[in-house]
């Protein structure tokens, strides 16, 4: 099993969510995040003084998948999240030892 984590532009969340649902993904976790990558932050001006804001808002999306599907799911996310401009985000996968569905106690791939 894999945990796919994606950091994407907030306005791309709906596109990515819809694409994942169309692919057949049945659950995900979404949280607000802040950070920076190569695009760095942005500059704001208050009363003539410039302020560099390092951390820009992003959305963090997490999906648990069967190892066999991981690459496909990553492709789906990347395709839906791309705008082509700097700051589109990153997607990575990490191995997962075990997963338990709390309600039923199912374990492993059955719990995904």
């Amino acid at each position, binding site marked *: 099993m894999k945990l796919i984590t994606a950091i994407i532009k907030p306005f791309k969340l709906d596109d990515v969510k819809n694409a994942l649902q169309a692919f057949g993904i049945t659950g995900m976790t979404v949280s607000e995040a*802040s950070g920076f990558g190569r695009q760095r932050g942005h500059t704001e*001006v208050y*009363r003539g003084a410039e302020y560099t804001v390092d951390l820009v808002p992003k959305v963090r999306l997490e999906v648990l998948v069967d190892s066999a599907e991981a690459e496909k799911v990553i492709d789906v996310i990347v395709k839906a999240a791309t705008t082509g401009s700097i700051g589109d985000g990153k997607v990575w996968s990490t191995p997962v030892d075990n997963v338990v569905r709390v309600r039923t106690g199912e374990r492993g791939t059955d719990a995904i």
Partner: protein
Amino acid sequence: MNFNTGDTAWILVASAMVLLMTPGLAFFYGGMVRGKNVLGMLAQNYVVMGIVSVLWITGVYSLAFSGTGKFIGDFHQFGLNHIWQQATGFEALTIPPLVFCAFQLMFAIITPALITGASADRLKFGAWTLFTGVWLVLVYAPVAHWVFSPSGWLFKLGAEDFAGGTVVHANAGAAALALILVIGKRRGWPKERMRPHNVPFVLLGAGLLWFGWFGFNAGSALSANTLSAFAFVNTNTATGAALLGWILVERLRDGHATTLGAASGAVAGLVAITPACGFVSPMGSIAIGFAAGIICSFAVGLKNKFGYDDALDVVGVHLVGGVLGALLIGFFGTKLTNGANGFFYGGGWTLMGKQAIAVAAVVAYSFVATYIIAKAIDLLIGLRVTEEQEVAGLDLSQHAETAYETASFNDGSRFSQSASGN
């Protein structure tokens, strides 16, 4: 005494409008501070409403407006004793003396409140309450007496200040400068970014100020007539012109016209037209407002050059704007509205000379007296919060409250400060 019910009704309403300016100011300032200090700012402003409301009635009104002294009033109307008598020199008023007292109270509230913007984020709440009371008695009362009371020396001189450009704005601005020189810079300024945490609050506050200012300026006619109408229209016109002047500078200088700039420009215009609103023409008020918007938009940058931490630009907006408006009466004053003719209306430099004396006297006295008061309180109980309290924020350290449920990563406070390893 023969009271006019129209005048009386208008000044009662105007008084309520001026009171609303202080909560408006609290939000104007509160939006500009970091999210961990917004309650501290609101509290400092609200407590002024409490302190001054009580002290004014108890004795400060008498010190400011009673008697025939040139420099200070007397104790004749302490505790509002003899309040059925008009204040000295105001015998012709058509409103009850108590209404005049209430109207002037609201001015005495907002003046010390204006100072809080400069010392934002680092003042001890208890020390601020002591400072407010002492400052009201030792600085506001005499200055109001000099300029507003017909027995005051600047009034007798013929210096014109319709609604408080010197008494309120230059006075508070000079006091703000003295106070911040005593307490020092905010921790981390100017290296660390301290951007406004809620610009919509700033705009909301500016709107309340603009509304309340009609009571402040048009109410200062102390009657409901053509003069109050001139003050009303001049106030609105100058404010609009100043708003445009400020955002024009921003667009040309920084690339974008900002909402904070629009609010700041409006307030700069309100400040500058305050002394002049009952002495100039509506066309003159366009010039005064536009000049205020442009000049103040540059004046707020002076703190970076000279290294004094005027957190929310009380010096750049209120001292500079108040002085500017008071001096421009020397050019734009016209008998057609009220008062004496300025330079552009054939009055020569006489009026300008009087305005300059009034400005210099008020600024110098306010600065020196405030510096001494601040220094004394600092030695006595300390004006400034500890470093730990400053990092935690005034909301938590002074009031055991927080304004918002969740910490935002982007507000430049909790996250970045704990990350920088305190």
